[in-house]
């Protein structure tokens, strides 16, 4: 619990700094980006695009390659559904994002490798997406923000018939509204 709060507050700070500015990676946001981005602009321009920017603002962090939130995939071992420790920070970061952006919605697509029945594989993918949803809600995201679904074996990211490939296909992808 204590560890969770730690990361939580760190993430909220990070978000605050992002939210005031258009975007920019958390690491560079404070000084570097600002002066270069808007040298002589009048503030009158901003309100016009406000609605769009308000929506785009939290999502910018999601797309920033330097932000952990840009990472969206969680991989699973064969016949396993538990979220491995190495993905804990990623899931925690997304939980915080959802907590602090109550309007944000997430779709988790679970996937399975190609072996066996297509419908049973829909079940396996669902078990994986449900697993990540459960961790996210335990970490404070609201149940209504998250839909966990399964694509079964239908959308492999890797199409060869080898264990290397299958491992890439035993995967959850986290998508935010507007991304699917």
């Amino acid at each position: 619990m204590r560890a969770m709060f730690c990361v939580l507050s760190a993430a909220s700070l990070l978000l605050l700094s992002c939210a005031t500015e258009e975007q920019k990676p958390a690491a560079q946001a404070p000084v570097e980006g600002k002066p270069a981005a808007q040298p002589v602009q009048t503030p009158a321009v901003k309100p016009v695009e406000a609605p769009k920017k308000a929506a785009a603002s939290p999502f910018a962090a999601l797309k920033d390659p330097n932000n952990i939130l840009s990472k969206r995939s969680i991989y699973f071992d064969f016949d396993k559904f538990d979220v491995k420790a190495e993905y804990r920070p990623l899931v925690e970061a997304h939980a915080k994002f959802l907590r602090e952006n109550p309007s944000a919605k997430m779709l988790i697509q679970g996937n399975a490798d190609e072996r066996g029945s297509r419908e049973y594989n829909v079940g396996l993918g669902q078990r994986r997406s449900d697993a990540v949803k459960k961790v996210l809600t335990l970490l404070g995201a609201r149940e209504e923000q998250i839909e966990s679904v399964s694509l079964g074996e239908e959308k492999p990211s890797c199409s060869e018939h080898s264990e290397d490939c299958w491992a890439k296909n035993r995967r959850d992808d986290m998508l935010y509204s507007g991304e699917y």
Partner: protein
Amino acid sequence: MIRLLALLLFMPAAHAQLSIEITGAGAQRIPIAIVPFAGENTLPPGVGSIVRADLERSGLFRGLELPPLTPEPTEATNINYAEWRARLADALLVGSVQQRPDGRFEVRFRLHDVVKQQPLGGIAYTLNKDQARATAHRISDFVYEKLTGEKGVFSTRIAYVVKRGNRYELQIADYDGANAETALASFEPIISPVWSPDGKRLAYVSFENKKPVVYIHSLSDGRRHVVANFKGSNSAPAWTPDGNRLAVVLSREGGSQLFMINADGSGVRRLASSTAIDTEPRFSPDGQSIYFTSDRGGTPQIYRMPASGGEPQRVTFEGSYNVSPRISPDGKTLAYITRNDAKFQVALLDLSTRQVQILTDSDRDESPSFSPNGRMILLATVIGERGVLSAVSADGRVKQRLSTAAGDVREPAWGPFIE
């Protein structure tokens, strides 16, 4: 398996045409003489040759090679049975095609039992030019039923999904792959098509909304409606025998669980409750039981439960992966996919003797589907990295393959008898 013949059926609508190849046949095939129908060249493709192809494809008949006959016998000819016996025929089919003044055609035939030296009946059809193939299949059904005692499936249709690149097409074709038509094209996957008992609609799962959603699609007018699009995944539809309701798998309450729903999408209610994956429901023909796949015991196995709900009983015990249950039309056997080592194959379980037989020698089989007379099982498999359809008889002897050069074929569903 002996390769008997390779038949390629060329159709006018050449897109993604399935071709059929017979790779095994029954041990005892009825020798039948099918005389080219008099005048059949006025009505292509030839009725007699379609009937012959149908009967040979069933694996139960052997069409005899015949010399040119003058005069050509027809349904009106008095048959000299001794002459046909000398040609080693057990049965004889004769007929004629005549164009009528109104441009339509009349096809007549008569079937003879050469061994018993008696006619077995005949029919006269009036048809339009484009009904030649359908008429020939009707004749095949007649011959098949008279000589084997069971209904033929030559007039039935199949559904399957073709994947080419990123494009998915749900297609409907004659049982032999001819006359393929696309019912639905999509850039997202389509799986699990199942025919309504009246053969007029298909239920299936489409991923066009980036998640599995169950639809019902009326084939004649192309109208479709959502049956189940609840939060989470919606999949694995199965019709009740009366066609009014479906069993579906929903994750809306967590996990993959069995629910019942009306065909219009109303009246959803939970059917069973477990912490496992419960999926792939199928009703027994009498509607009293539901067979389904569940991993409640640690590995995926097939279970049966009362359709009204109740305690499931395990049905499969051999092996660690038994999925995709399909009950035969007579309710006596269960086809399913079993994993042996790394091979996925079609198995058939006799529900009274508990005996299991592996029917296929392929290794990536999926989605078995009984023909409506229960004799054949259509399935998807992979040959040379390409998805193909294959059919095997319930006794494992007769084998056929349907493939298309244009892409991967998968998710077959054999339609019901059409009245």
